[in-house]
């Protein structure tokens, strides 16, 4: 898995990261900022890395990122084919093999009041994606109505880096495979950022079960409607809703009788209600389950699962 990250780092940094003498398992992000120290973000804290791959707090000892490192990184990331990644260049991230997301910032170029592309990249962030098989085992029973044999419309609410994508991916895997209680469901996945499936050239690299159809690199709103029309899914899964433009598509999916499982950035149900459009969705009880994540104790910690009355679901099948 880490080879995918290593292969996409520029040569100098790749050699340094290879020398790091602790497990790559504890790394969340690798950050390259021009003229700044090479920085690694772990679960608990962050630190600088010296030229020899040693952990240091000292700015002077740390390896300073050069402009040429960033240039090389972008060449590797875009595989010398910018035309194939126009949308990603506009949105500020590229998903590499393995589903890892690499974000970047630089000088924004506008065209017709819209971001056209990002030039002169000054900062790159390699976010390491982990497939945590079993992350959803604890909640899966609470999302399923045994009597009616349906999966509840579910919204996962989570701050960034708290594991919502990982949780959603595992929910998809379990539902798609089925378990001793839940028969396997047909899942349609709209993977706008290629993060959930980690698809490379359209083929899913992550385990998404036996019954999952993936629309890779597809706009959420169009993708959801396409799946409803063409793939007769039991469940549609999408990551990171919350824009006003998503609301209509969400309503249409739920009204068409397909279950929707999705995620949104936020800390609590209250904070979500303040987003335009979401207030109505919540008031109209489109979602039947809310999973609230927190990263206070550890990443992926499930704070609580709420039902339509915002009461905590404790027993299964209620």
């Amino acid at each position, binding site marked *: 898995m880490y080879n995918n990250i290593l292969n996409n780092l520029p040569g100098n940094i790749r050699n340094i990261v290879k020398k790091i003498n602790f497990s790559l398992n504890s790394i969340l992000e690798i950050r390259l900022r021009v003229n700044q120290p090479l920085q690694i973000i772990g679960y608990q804290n962050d630190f600088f890395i010296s030229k020899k791959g040693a952990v240091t707090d000292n700015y002077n000892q740390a390896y300073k990122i050069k402009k040429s490192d960033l240039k090389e990184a972008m060449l*590797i990331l875009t595989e010398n084919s910018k035309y*194939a990644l126009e949308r990603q*260049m506009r949105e500020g991230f590229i998903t590499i093999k393995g589903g890892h997301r690499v974000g970047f910032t630089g000088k924004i170029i506008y065209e017709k009041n819209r971001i056209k592309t990002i030039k002169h990249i000054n900062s790159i962030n390699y976010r390491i994606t982990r497939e945590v098989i079993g992350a959803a085992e604890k909640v899966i029973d609470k999302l399923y109505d045994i009597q009616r044999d349906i999966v509840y419309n579910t919204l996962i609410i989570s701050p960034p880096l708290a594991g919502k994508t990982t949780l959603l991916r595992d929910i998809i895997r379990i539902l798609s495979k089925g378990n001793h209680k839940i028969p396997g469901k047909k899942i349609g996945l709209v993977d706008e950022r290629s993060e959930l499936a980690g698809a490379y050239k359209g083929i899913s690299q992550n385990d998404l079960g036996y019954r999952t159809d993936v629309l890779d690199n597809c706009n959420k709103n169009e993708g959801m409607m396409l799946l409803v029309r063409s793939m007769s899914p039991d469940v549609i899964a999408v990551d990171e809703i919350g824009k006003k433009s998503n609301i209509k598509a969400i309503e249409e999916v739920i009204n068409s009788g397909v279950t929707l499982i999705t995620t949104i950035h936020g800390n609590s149900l209250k904070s979500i209600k303040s987003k335009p459009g979401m207030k109505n969705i919540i008031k109209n009880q489109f979602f039947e389950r809310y999973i609230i994540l927190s990263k206070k104790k550890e990443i992926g910690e499930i704070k609580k699962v709420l039902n339509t009355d915002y009461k905590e679901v404790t027993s299964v099948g209620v």
Partner: protein
Amino acid sequence: MGFKIIGIILILSSGTLIGWYISLQYIKRIKQLNELQLAINFLDAEISFNQTLLKDALEKVATRINYPLSEIFNNSARELSLKKGISFNIIWDKEVNKNFEINSLREEDKQILLEWGHKLGTTGVEKQEKINKLISKKLELEQKNAREQADKRVKLSRYTGVLLSLLIIILFY
């Protein structure tokens, strides 16, 4: 006498062959320029319709054209897939120069190829299409030149080969 006849035959045949060889280069250039035109069109389609990654697109192009021109595309694709973070134009320059001798292209054709390589993959789809169109136009002009030159010089070099060898024979014997 026997020696003389063998000598005459040798001089005449080698002169003729040299003439044929030179004329063949003109014909080969036209053929290779045609192939390059085909390669550009094919790559353009891969870029604008399929947004295929450059390394895959080059590999596909290489299967459509003949050796030795295909070498440039094949080797560049291979180098790119090593993911060393080398800019494509550096790889392309190296491959075009390395394979220049085994191809029948001329310096002006090479310059067009190099210009193309410096712009491939560096912009969005729209600009790539424009670049491909421009390069295609330039190649078209060279094709026209090449055909005109071939019309004039193919026969000329063949006759010159024969006539020069005859001149040598007359002078020596």
